[in-house]
């Protein structure tokens, strides 16, 4: 596949009809909540797009993000589009190994300096560069070197976006997110553990068609992370009615009531799970009866327990109350005793006024 062919040419070569291509563009537009009028714009931009070089770096990660991307939609047009991006380097997916693999990365960087898209999954260890290396190069060095020539960086997964599980307490490797190391490049965060496959491809498509998308305060594309799970949850009416599952096998759970009491993080989690869903639109965690873990939010692993409702205190309240009662009674008794002493002293010091005293006052 020659790199200088446009996306449109490649798709036609592969037997994708104009109709099929436009259908994909329309689906992408609706996925990104864009009006139908933008479909021709997406089509035109993608049609003309040259296959951009993409370098995918995997650091401290579990390959779940790549698994999500490659497995879930194995035969859809999204994957074809993804094929059509020139994925020049990806540990898991590339055939080359050893020096050949690193050569591929370096030549892709040289040929497309300043233009290639860098995708990163996994966090970067900073406590000791030896904790994670590729071809003898530490993750920090490889990220800095590759980021230098990138047009933009897409941090795929919560580890690359926010530090994720490697950064969870006590963070033995000193793991950090991409944005903590690279500050001079546009970074798009696509968090999730893993992110939804069509969200990964959707963000790439959006980037190819329109450039840098609109991002929220955590650098996540608004198109996919603009609304909370809670606001789009089909179980929301049960929350509003105050009907909650108390355990995983009670009547409420069987009737599909709200999972808030079982620790659902839907109200504080921004992602497209409730609308896009997983496994080609089959379902999402809440639909299969499990509370949202909030995996697309920073520090989700340390947010006070997956099965603890968000609002409740985590401390030992009976102990705090016992200290309070003990201290209060002691202080109260001391103050009460002091008041009595004062009162008794006042009574003792009290001088009775006699008639004589009053008579004295009357005399001029």
């Amino acid at each position, binding site marked *: 596949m020659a790199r200088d062919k446009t996306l449109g040419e490649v798709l036609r070569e592969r037997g994708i009809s104009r109709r099929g291509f436009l259908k994909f563009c329309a689906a992408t537009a609706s996925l990104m909540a864009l009006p139908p009028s933008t479909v021709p714009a997406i089509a035109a931009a993608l049609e003309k797009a040259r296959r951009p070089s993409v370098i995918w770096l995997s650091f401290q990660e579990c390959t779940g993000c790549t698994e999500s991307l490659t497995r879930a939609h194995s035969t859809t047009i999204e994957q074809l589009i993804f094929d059509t991006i020139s994925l020049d380097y990806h540990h898991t997916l590339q055939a080359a190994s050893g020096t050949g693999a690193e050569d591929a990365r370096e030549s892709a960087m040289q040929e497309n300096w300043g233009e290639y898209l860098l995708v990163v999954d996994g966090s970067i260890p900073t406590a000791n560069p030896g904790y994670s290396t590729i071809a003898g190069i530490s993750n920090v060095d490889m990220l800095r070197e590759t980021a230098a020539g990138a047009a933009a960086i897409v941090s795929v997964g919560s580890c690359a976006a926010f530090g994720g599980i490697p950064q969870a307490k006590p963070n033995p490797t000193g793991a950090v997110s991409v944005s903590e190391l690279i500050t001079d490049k546009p970074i798009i965060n696509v968090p999730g553990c893993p992110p939804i496959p069509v969200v990964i491809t959707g963000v790439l498509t959006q980037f190819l068609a329109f450039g840098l998308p609109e991002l929220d305060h955590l650098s996540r594309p608004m198109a996919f992370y603009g609304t909370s799970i809670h606001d789009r949850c089909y179980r929301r009416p049960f*929350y509003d009615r105050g009907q909650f599952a108390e355990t995983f096998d009670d009547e409420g759970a069987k009737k599909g009531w709200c999972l808030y009491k079982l620790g659902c993080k839907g109200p504080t989690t921004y992602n497209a799970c409730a609308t896009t869903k997983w496994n080609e639109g089959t379902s999402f965690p809440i639909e299969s009866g499990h509370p949202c873990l909030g995996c697309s939010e920073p*520090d989700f692993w*340390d947010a006070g327990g997956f099965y603890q409702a968000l609002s409740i205190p985590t*401390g030992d*309240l009976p102990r705090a109350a016992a200290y*309070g009662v003990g201290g209060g009674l002691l202080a*109260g008794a001391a*103050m009460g005793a002091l*008041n009595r002493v004062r009162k008794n002293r006042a009574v003792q010091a009290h001088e009775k006024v006699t008639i004589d005293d009053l008579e004295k006052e009357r005399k001029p």
Partner: protein
Amino acid sequence: MTEIEFLLWVRGPAFEGATVIFVLGVAFRLLEILMLGRKANLAEARGSAMLGGLRTIATRSFPDATTHKRSAFTHTVGYIFHIGFFVTLLLFAPHILVVEKAFGVSWPALPTPVVDATAVVTMIALIAVLWHRLKDPVLRFLSNFQDYFAWFLTILPVFTGYIAFHRVGMSPPTLIAIHILSIELLMVVFPFTKLMHAFTLFMARWYNGAIAGYKGVNS
């Protein structure tokens, strides 16, 4: 400190600390009042002090026509914001979870939109009482810093809870953290301000009624 760390601090050590101060303060104030004691009443009892006390607790807890005639505004709006505050505090599902965690008891929640509307009514009523306090020359003359501070501490949790529920302005974890923090502020200041009336009012009513009951008259 990230926003999740802030939320965890607010839910954990900060809430524990606020609980210690709140319970300590309430126990301290109650014991101090009770230890003041009273001289033995040497007069012969003409009725039951206990019954008189209990009767007054009941009669002063319900709307009263004379009081209403005298100050209709304070009477009406006072009831509205007190009831609204307690409905919002005690019948919202996430709040009941906190009670369950602290005391091990729970009860059914009201539908969320009802609590939401109640919170709005409560805030309007609280703003109305402030407006009344500022507008009425006598009330304004009698008001000091503590009156305004107590008002602020009361409306703050309702307001922060409202914006947390509707997720206005900030990220959800920050909003929830600020809401819980506003409750903690209320808990810390509560025993040492006039807000303590929530604990002393029944004592005071009983005492008033008991004096009258002992004398064999209605209070």
